């Protein structure tokens, strides 16, 4: 295949125009970066070439011949293969089974013919030079054992050959459910190479890899290019574009903006093409003022199905700071946050919340009369002059008056253990803990419910009586829509219909609306465009300035190093290091992410 040309491709989903009259060309033997923000149409466009989407209008030309690629099978016929962000693998199958899945009888016959041809060529070359040795003849005979029928042994051999050729490490008989993320990705690439693709499309391949694994992947891609293959890499990461690609094509909001040679451009220019205007690429990071201890995680261990998902984790999170957590996907970050939130129960260890109450008056919002009396008996309060308060013998009415006049004041911060508490119990204790989970629609919101109902998720138990009070949630929804610029037809739209960025704005908005003392976020800007991402970074900074303790679990090391005040790295459930983002390098973090250690 010498070239692929797309002409005037358009596709719409409902009222959203994903692709708008796009024309571009891909040439043989180049590594092309398809660049654009989240939601710009990159994946959709490649899905057209890969046979998953049908364009509403427009044509695809391969080597100047018009073709219709109506299914992934068709794409293979044209030697095009695509590796998606969400791997298309069957979990219970082994690597080999996944690789041969979908091969037809004709494919097996073709393999046999290729094998025979290779052997014939080998012997033809020898003719006239020398006689083949007995060993060589025997070897050739044994190589043409393949019967031309469904045969896993043959596949195994070919897989090993491909791995050796390009530099992969794959165990053919390993089950997918036992594989790591980068092993699965390698499997996907080998799957495509097995079918003899000439054009390989990778959709955001580096999102799930450590810096070291990214290096290995890029080396493999360069090997493939040397072998005459063409690679398209869909990405929004500028530094990778600069590092690996020969050419860049930029999409924005479904339209084709332009293409440049990588050697002739720079990140600033590319960003301007992606976003449409000059963007300040600096993430604002205010200096923390008097960070105070907010959350202690001491020797926490969590065991799931016999595996230590969290192994003796020790961490401190301070109010007024953003603590970042970096790590390969599946190292335990998710479980750590869920443990703190009360969604998982730790096997051992303590999670202690320091409720900032020093010199603050108690209010009925946080504690009821009985709790106030109990705490007073424990000597937790003082009066405005600093003297100890004794509430014994006082009537309830008198105590109420004192609370309203703000005369009952905390001596010091409250220490509240969180382990073994359910999310409901944590709420009822008055601990303001907010959590923006990785899975927005699957955990943070209910897709079928509308905006108002989703805002009621946190507050629906409030109020006397059996019915849910919807007025406050409705006002909250209105407020968030206005403040954060959420795009929605109205408040009654099911949130599942909104775009990713708007969903996240709703979720983050709801979580910070309660003025939390701890805010935990997992991959909060995943899938969001640049503007929304920076909006969220600023929100987190604002929270930090409001004395909230922010935990930021992320995958983009550049963002982590620019945004956080301290950075913890987790690997296989252990904290391998807590470093200073101002001083540490990305490579050092990469080492920590794979369990190594660095000199402090």
């Amino acid at each position: 295949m010498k070239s692929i040309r797309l002409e005037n491709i358009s596709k719409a989903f409902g009222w959203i125009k994903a692709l708008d009259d796009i024309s571009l060309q891909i040439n043989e033997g180049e590594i092309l970066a398809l660049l654009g923000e989240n939601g710009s149409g990159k994946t959709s466009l490649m899905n057209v070439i890969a046979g998953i989407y049908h364009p509403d209008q427009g044509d695809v030309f391969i080597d100047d011949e018009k073709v219709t690629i109506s299914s992934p099978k068709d794409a293979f016929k044209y030697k095009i293969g695509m590796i998606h962000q969400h791997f298309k693998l069957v979990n219970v199958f082994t690597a080999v089974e996944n690789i041969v899945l979908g091969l037809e009888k004709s494919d097996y016959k073709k393999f046999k013919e290729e094998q025979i041809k290779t052997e014939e060529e080998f012997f033809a070359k020898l003719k006239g030079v020398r006689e083949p040795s007995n060993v060589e003849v025997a070897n050739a005979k044994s190589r043409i054992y393949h019967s031309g029928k469904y045969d896993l042994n043959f596949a195994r051999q070919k897989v090993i050959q491909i791995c050796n050729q390009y530099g992969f490490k794959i165990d053919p008989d390993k089950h997918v459910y036992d594989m790591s993320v980068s092993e699965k990705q390698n499997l996907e690439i080998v799957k495509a190479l097995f079918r003899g693709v000439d054009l390989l499309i990778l959709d955001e391949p580096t999102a799930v890899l450590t810096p070291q694994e990214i290096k290995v992947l890029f080396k493999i891609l360069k090997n493939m290019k040397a072998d005459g293959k063409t690679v398209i890499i869909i990405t929004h990461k500028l530094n990778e574009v600069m590092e690996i690609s020969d050419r860049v094509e930029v999409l924005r909001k479904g339209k084709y903006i332009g293409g440049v040679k990588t050697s002739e451009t720079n990140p600033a220019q590319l960003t301007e093409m992606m976003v449409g205007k000059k963007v300040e690429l600096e993430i604002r990071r205010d200096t923390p003022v008097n960070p105070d201890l907010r959350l202690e995680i001491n020797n926490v261990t969590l065991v799931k199905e016999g595996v230590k998902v969290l192994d003796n984790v020790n961490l401190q999170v301070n109010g007024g700071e953003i603590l970042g957590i970096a790590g390969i996907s599946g190292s335990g970050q998710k479980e750590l946050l869920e443990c703190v939130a009360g969604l998982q129960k730790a096997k051992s260890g303590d999670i202690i919340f320091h409720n900032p109450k020093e010199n603050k008056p108690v209010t009925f919002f946080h504690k009821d009369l009985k709790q106030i009396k109990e705490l007073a008996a424990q000597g937790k309060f003082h009066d405005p002059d600093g003297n100890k308060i004794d509430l014994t013998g006082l009537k309830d009415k008198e105590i109420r008056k004192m609370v309203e006049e703000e005369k009952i004041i905390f001596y010091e911060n409250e220490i509240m253990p969180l382990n073994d508490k359910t999310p409901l119990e944590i709420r009822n204790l008055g601990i303001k803990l907010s959590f923006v989970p990785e899975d927005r629609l699957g955990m943070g919101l209910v897709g079928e419910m509308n905006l108002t109902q989703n805002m009621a998720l946190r507050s629906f138990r409030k109020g006397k009586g059996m019915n849910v009070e919807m007025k406050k949630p409705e006002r909250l929804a209105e407020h968030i829509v206005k403040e954060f610029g959420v795009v929605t037809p109205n408040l009654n739209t099911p949130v599942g219909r909104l775009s990713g960025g708007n969903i996240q704005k709703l979720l983050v908005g709801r979580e910070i609306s309660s003025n939390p003392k701890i805010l935990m976020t997992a991959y909060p800007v995943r899938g969001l465009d640049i503007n929304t991402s920076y909006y969220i970074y600023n929100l987190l900074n604002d929270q930090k300035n409001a004395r909230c303790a922010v935990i930021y679990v992320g995958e983009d090391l550049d963002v982590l190093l620019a945004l956080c005040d301290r950075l913890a790295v987790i690997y296989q459930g252990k904290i391998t290091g807590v470093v200073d983002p101002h001083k540490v390098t990305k490579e050092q973090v990469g080492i920590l992410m794979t369990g190594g250690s660095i000199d402090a």
Partner: protein
Amino acid sequence: MFITFLRNAIRFSTIFLFGSTGETIVEKSGHLNMGIPGVMCIGALAGCAGMSIYFNTLTDPSQINLFGAVVLGILFTIVSGAICGVIFSFFTVTLRCNQNITGLTLTTLGAGINLFVFKRLETFSSYFGKASDGFRNLFQVEVGANWFTDVFLSYGILVYLAIIIAVVATIIFSKTRVGLNLKAVGESPATADSAGISVTRYRYLATIIGCSIASLGGLFMIMDYLGGNIEYGLDEYGWLAVAIVIFSMWKPHFGILASFIFGALYIAPSYLNASFAMKNVIKMIPYVVTIAVLVVTSILNKKGNQPPEGLGINYDREKR
């Protein structure tokens, strides 16, 4: 006496074996077909209806060509099962309706059509009685000679067919390309689709073949086991067959054993000298055993014995 019990248990288990093998094939492709009881009913009546067309040309049961009757019955049954498979697939794959609802509607319809048509076929009841000899005896080797022939060689064709089909199904699942593709369709249709496997085609074909096999269970019950007694409700057996699919962990060769156990339990009351009340209790045992199996397998939860991941979920390629 025990030999008779064993023999009848194996015979009875055939209805379960057809049903569970058929439904296993269907479920491997990702369809949870709650219409299997309806399919079995329709299978029975289609076979009988087909045979009655032939009987209509005769004046007396003794004129029946047994071989022809058997072939006719099996043919009509299989076709009716296939049609049920087409209907189910059409509603779930093409029209994208909920699988449970489609299945339940099919069962309701099947049970209803069953009794209705059989009332119409009452005039042929003596013919059915004679024809059942064909199903029972035509391929028999010998009966009554010794215990070995009784236990292994004295069955009607459908019994042997059920076992052969179960074994063939297992081989296809584990050793062939088509089997691998089918498993993929059931586990992860998105993966199968991107590998170039037509999820639609596999689901349609698996459902059609599976329902055809299951429908033979209904025919067997009426024509072999019951000796041509056409007024009989078949739903219960269909549900137990669905339970056996789980019990056998979606492996048809286990299904052979499981069907036998259920068959034995089901007919045990008639072989025991117990009061009428006790017999009622024993009749409940297969259901209790099924529940026990359900509970135990859910507690144990081993990885290789789970249902196909995509079971019960319709596949939509363009779902974002």
